[in-house]
């Protein structure tokens, strides 16, 4: 029912998709498999009308289409549940479900009672029990996802696309989701299911299409393909090459940073951790477990509500980013566009941004000095660019990330915190970033890496600390941790 032919799409500095074909049949669950940065998200945005392809043809129901907005795709019956939901936190569950498709009475006015009643019935059909009057902001992530799916059902959905739906839910919730998707399939709806977890692809999908680095690798019946074959298709090389070897005992005995039962609102609760110079500690857990909040708290970007921080032997009850930088700490945030880089400035300006004192002479910026610093870092970290004056907005995600990391690595003397350091970065840049991280640790920094990618956690960490619902649920030595042991700590239901 959906056919894509030769779809290509470029972004500044990156070729996100090149010549991709995809066919989704009526009433099948079709998996879309690939690593981060393989082009999955770009592809579904194109199908959903949120992005236009540079080249290629799309046909839906055997008719060529060119949707110029998500609205047009929706009217045709294509509905997407994005990873970062399209919900309105200030509106209620029922209002969210029927937004743009309001229940009306004979006068054409919004029928509030019917909105609530229909929303309840719809959710009953999906097997969820939510108060339709509850505000969406108060729901768990899994429930928010159900609101999104319920919304799709109110339209005449023909093709439901889910972008990594299991990245934010776990265990029992995943099983429920799969059950609901199978029910939809049996009702004749096609499902395009995006994931990078093989087990899920085998459990749920009829066929699977594999993307790698923006190119189509192939489409397979899940019944005829082995797990190993899929891994090779997806990764295209041995995972071992990706990660640098762990070094022998560069770690110091005295912690450089220690927290004593710190809490941040209700998002981080009574967390006590230690970081030692020379080690890479991974902070694992589901999205929303409070890991990013903890990172921001350590760096002083959000206030700590209780507990104390001990950094380099000194005790702090409050922290601020300026003080943290003074103590030699660095934070590479999750969202480099809004929190990390000045996108319109060039590499040199971004590199010296947080410490202008170093390049200032007689109160003015010494551009020559700034440029030579940038040139040195560009070489050291192998940043692909046209030189220190390249505006960062024109670079690929991986190279932007290297600029941020290089900047902080220069300023950082004690603790470097990296929040999802390889998100949206292609495989080649990933390997580079891993190498840089290991070098920095070996040179005596303590590195705290927040990551939702288990392969990365397993490949990089000397220690793994797992968080769930704001609390530390366990700690594992990096060499002994497995996907299962981490997932267990990250998701296990509260003691029944």
């Amino acid at each position, binding site marked *: 029912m959906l056919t894509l032919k030769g779809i290509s799409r470029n972004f500044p500095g990156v070729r996100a998709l090149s010549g991709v074909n995809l066919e989704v049949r009526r009433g099948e669950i079709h998996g879309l498999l690939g690593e981060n940065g393989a082009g999955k998200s770009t592809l579904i945005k194109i199908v*959903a009308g*949120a992005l236009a392809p540079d080249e290629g043809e799309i046909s839906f129901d055997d008719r060529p289409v060119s949707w110029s*907005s*998500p*609205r047009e795709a*929706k*009217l045709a019956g294509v509905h*997407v549940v*994005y990873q970062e*939901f*399209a*919900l*309105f*936190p*200030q*509106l*209620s569950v029922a*209002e969210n479900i029927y*937004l*743009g498709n*309001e229940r*009306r009475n004979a006068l*054409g*006015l*919004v029928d509030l009672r019917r909105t609530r009643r229909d929303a309840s019935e719809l959710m009953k059909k999906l097997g969820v029990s939510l*108060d339709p*009057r*509850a*505000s969406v902001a*108060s729901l768990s992530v899994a429930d928010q996802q159900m609101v999104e799916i319920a*919304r799709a059902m109110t339209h005449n959905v023909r093709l439901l696309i889910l972008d990594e739906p299991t990245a934010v839910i776990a265990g029992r919730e995943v099983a429920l989701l799969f059950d609901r998707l199978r029910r939809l399939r049996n009702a004749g709806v096609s499902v395009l299911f995006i994931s990078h977890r093989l087990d899920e692809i085998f459990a749920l999908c009829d066929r699977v299409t594999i993307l790698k680095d923006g190119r189509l690798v192939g489409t397979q019946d899940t019944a005829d393909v082995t797990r190993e074959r899929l891994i090779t298709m997806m990764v295209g090389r041995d995972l071992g090459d990706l990660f640098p070897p762990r070094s022998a005992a560069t770690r110091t005995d005295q912690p450089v940073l220690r927290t004593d039962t710190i809490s941040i609102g209700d998002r981080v609760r009574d967390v006590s951790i230690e970081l030692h110079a020379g080690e890479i500690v991974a902070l694992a857990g589901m999205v929303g477990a409070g890991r990013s909040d903890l990172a921001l708290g350590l760096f002083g970007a959000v206030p700590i509500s209780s507990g104390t921080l001990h950094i380099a032997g000194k005790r702090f009850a409050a922290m601020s980013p300026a003080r943290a930088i003074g103590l030699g700490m660095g934070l590479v945030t999750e969202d480099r566009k809004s929190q990390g880089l000045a996108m319109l400035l060039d590499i040199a300006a971004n590199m010296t941004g947080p410490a202008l004192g170093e390049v200032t002479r007689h109160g003015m910026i010494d551009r020559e000095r700034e440029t030579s610093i940038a040139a040195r870092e560009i070489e050291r970290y192998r940043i692909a660019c046209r030189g220190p004056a390249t505006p960062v907005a024109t670079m690929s995600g991986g190279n932007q990330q290297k600029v941020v990391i290089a900047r902080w690595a220069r300023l950082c003397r004690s603790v470097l915190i990296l929040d999802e350091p390889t998100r949206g970065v292609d495989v080649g840049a990933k390997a580079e970033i891993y190498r840089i991280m290991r070098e920095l640790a070996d040179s005596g920094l303590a590195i705290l890496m927040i990551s939702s990618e288990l392969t990365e956690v397993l490949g990089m960490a000397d220690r793994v600390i797992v968080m769930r619902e704001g609390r530390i649920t366990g700690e594992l030595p990096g060499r002994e941790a497995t996907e299962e042991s981490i997932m267990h700590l990250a998701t296990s239901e509260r003691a029944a």
Partner: protein
Amino acid sequence: MTAIAARLTPPWWLRSNAGLIGVLVLIGAVSIVGATVSDRFLTLGNLLNVYEQTTDLALVSIGQTLTILSGGIDLSVGSLISLTSCLTSGLINGNPDRVLPVVAGVLALGTLVGMINAALVVALRVHPLIVTLGMGAILQGVTLLYALGPVGRVPRSFNVLAYGRIAGIPIGATVALTLCILIALLLRYLPLGRQIYALGDDANSARLVGLRRTRILMFVYGASGFCCAATGLYLAARFGVGQPYTGVNYTLASITPVVLGGTLLSGGRGGVIGTMFGAFLIALLNNLLNFMDVSKHYQLVAQAVIIILAVSIYVERRRME
């Protein structure tokens, strides 16, 4: 039990006017001070005067509330008020027979100007702040091309809009109140109303859900233009003549009641009923300062203090939520 209650959204009249409590408390405070200053302050007669003095600010601010709720702002209101008030008195020019066609024409013109604002925002992908700022400058220029000083006059029958009362109730203010209630109902009961909140809450989600931004903005800015035209008509009626700079102060003044009424400047939350009370609060405050013989200049200072105070209270409340 309380945990469950906290998960529910509050009732609509409270939710869409979260700041309502704040305005009401401030109105109460000003009233108490007023009562101690003069025993004539809290009389029905004085309160009706205050109600009457709310008219112009209420009219502009109701429209402004819509643009702010949708995540934008309208900075062309001042000039549009000047233009419409000049056109009103200039075109009627004392002839009672022209009143109806000119009123209709001016309201249509205001709406059209607002819709042009929306069209420019959509077509040029420029922030409403810039588009309406530019539109404001253009309209002020057009107004000065039409009249460099006071222009035209309006017949006595037209003065009714500003000074008329039925059974002691001011007509102009009641028109504003009626408009406010109509828009409050629209925000609640029309799909369009819901969509205004959604667009202001998260513009990107709104696009992904397939909301028609153009249509929503056309309505929102059209309504703001309509409200400006209504204000222009009212001012022409009140002064009996149109003046090319009569609207200048309304651009920023129109934002004050919106914010006082608890609408988030970033959009997505609030409502017109709060705005109405916000406009009433400002009229009440000015009235109080008149009672206290404080000069007009200090009234501006007092307004400024009130608005900064009110906003800081809202910020604090939101932080605690």
